[in-house]
């Protein structure tokens, strides 16, 4: 059922870093430090593949997505989209790029303009890119997009506040599809929804992936949804990828101590399973990305840490075929 990625990846990220300056003083701002939101990460996504990017708040998963969309200009590294490095593209070339990659945001309340009708919200990208100058054809396209996303085409005349959260998220998805993109960044796209509605939207994302042969970067903190939807998963912690593997391999056989702590912290909706489960919450809290710990960033919370972990930053190593781990202690 799962299509393997083809040979050339659609997206390749090499040594990506995004450091935000911290400044002091209003007029003559001095740089007094930086937040290392993303600190040197590598991964790739094959055509038609869904890669999950998971981690807790502040781990850099959203910033990674924003760099790929070129909503940020990365501090260092390369982002190869279809073989072309997009980190240095001028804004004129970005317009063409953005027809091919789109985004679905978490909060359909704040990502839809409350003063625009649904029809205009979905038509806007088509208009901006001058794809369908004929007004009536554009309207037909908008109606089709609505019905593809499971909404009644009559909704074109509604305003976002007249719709439920699930319906609004469908509008956000229809807008992302308006330009027939091949790649979509889903940034916590189902996190704000109620459980019963969340499943509807997850199914919709799956249907669309098949129907339009889409490639997703699925950024989320809900690991159960990620397991369901993603073929491969990367776990981030404090700006770095600590583990990357095929979905089932990662969830059934986590190797990095952080991934293990993360997975054991998620309660399973079954009291019989919970009664038998061994539970080891990670001690302490995530340190500040302004002054991240030396060496392995997880060492202050790690049950396996040895002296060397304080000194050397562990590289991602392929411990089993396709299963990469950034830990020097895991064998």
């Amino acid at each position, binding site marked *: 059922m799962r299509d393997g990625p083809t040979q050339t990846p659609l997206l390749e990220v090499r040594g990506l870093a995004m450091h935000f300056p911290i400044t002091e003083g209003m007029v003559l701002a001095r740089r007094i430090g930086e937040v290392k939101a993303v600190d040197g990460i590598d991964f790739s996504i094959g055509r038609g593949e869904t890669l999950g990017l998971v981690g*807790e*708040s502040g781990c850099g998963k959203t910033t990674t997505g924003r760099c790929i969309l070129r909503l940020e200009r990365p501090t260092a590294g390369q982002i190869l989209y279809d073989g072309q490095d997009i980190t240095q593209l001028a804004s004129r070339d970005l317009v063409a790029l953005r027809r091919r990659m789109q985004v679905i945001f978490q909060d359909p309340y704040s990502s839809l303009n409350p003063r625009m009708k649904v029809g205009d919200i979905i038509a806007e990208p088509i208009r901006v890119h001058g794809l369908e100058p004929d007004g009536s054809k554009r309207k037909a396209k908008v109606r089709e997009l609505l019905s593809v996303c499971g909404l009644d085409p009559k909704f074109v005349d509604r305003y976002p506040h007249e719709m*439920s*959260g*699930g*319906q609004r998220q469908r509008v956000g998805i229809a807008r992302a599809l308006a330009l027939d993109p091949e790649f979509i960044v889903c940034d916590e796209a189902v996190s704000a929804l*109620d*459980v*019963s*509605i*969340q*499943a*509807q939207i*997850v*199914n919709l994302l*799956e249907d669309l992936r098949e129907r339009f042969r889409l490639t997703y970067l699925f950024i989320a*903190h809900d*690991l*159960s*949804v990620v*397991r*369901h939807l993603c073929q491969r998963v990367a776990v981030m912690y404090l700006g770095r990828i600590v583990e990357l593997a095929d979905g*089932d391999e990662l*969830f*059934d056989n986590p190797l990095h101590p952080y991934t293990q*702590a*993360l*997975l*054991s*912290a*998620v*309660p*399973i*909706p*079954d*009291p*019989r*399973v*919970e009664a038998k489960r061994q*539970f080891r*919450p*990670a001690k302490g*809290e*995530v340190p500040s990305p302004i002054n991240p710990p030396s060496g392995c960033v997880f060492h202050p919370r790690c049950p396996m840490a040895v002296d060397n972990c304080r000194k050397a930053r562990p590289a991602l190593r392929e411990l089993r075929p396709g299963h990469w781990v950034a830990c020097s202690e895991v064998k």
Partner: protein
Amino acid sequence: MPPLLEVKGLHTEFRTGAGIVRAVDGVSYSVDPGETVAIVGESGSGKSVGALSILRLIPNPPGRITAGEILFDGRDLLKLSTADMREIRGRDIGMVFQEPMTSLNPVLTIGRQITETLERHQGADSGAAEKRALELLDMVGIADAPRRLRQYPHQLSGGMRQRVMIAVALACSPKLIIADEPTTALDVTIQAQILELMKSLSVKLGVALIVITHNLGIVARYASRVNVMYAGRVVETGTAEAIYHDPRHPYTIALLRSVPRLDQPRRGRLDPVDGQPPDLTRLDGGCAFRPRCRFAVAACAQSYPPLEAVGEPGHFSACFRSNEIASIRRADSRETAA
């Protein structure tokens, strides 16, 4: 042993521009001393309004408790004077809310927020109160308590603030703590720490807990009894074992089926609850889940099904077809297994 808390026929309404919303529409349940009861439901199901009604914290207007009894330790809280109610809150019933940043006072030190409760309710002098505050911070796992006492909420992380909230809630040794989505704003590893802390303290100190949550995993891990709410009513109640392994209400069944599982490889598409959440201003006399229900029949439109005993003792479901559904489910699972 009589229950610690007994909610009987509670009704809470809000006046809105679109009409009257019956946010809590005839809810009854009880909580035994030391027990953990989970109230689970989606947005708008009435789970938070129900809990705020127990504490009489419903803003009026637009809200109003229109009927019911809330017996706590034998007294009807709805009949108490405002002053008596203020004595109960924080002393006999502690509260932990979702967002600790907005429920702690940003201009008071952590220490003051704890000692205020102690001085107000127990008449402690400032020395004794501070000593107790140190003990409490220690108990909720905050290291370096003397320094933390002098800090302000913004100097603490989210998880740390929630620990302070728990310390405040426990300060006067209450009999009951109401926790409304206590970990929803927290990351999953911190969520686990906070829940483990609440559970172990509740066992150690014999405090009863009402945990309000939308997270079915948290319910499975921590609750002994579960109330499932939909559109202002409890539609099913029972032990966690009964709710998860012998659910009888179509909404409970649909809800459990719709969540993907972290501990299992994918088994095909998810099975969502069809349709949209109910519009609470447009409820009729029938079952509110009917438009989304796979089992709905003509009778469901006629009257609201009462909670009736099903399966194990203490297991109740508000559905005309609860008993049939059990056999349909058994047939279903045989089919899936085959």
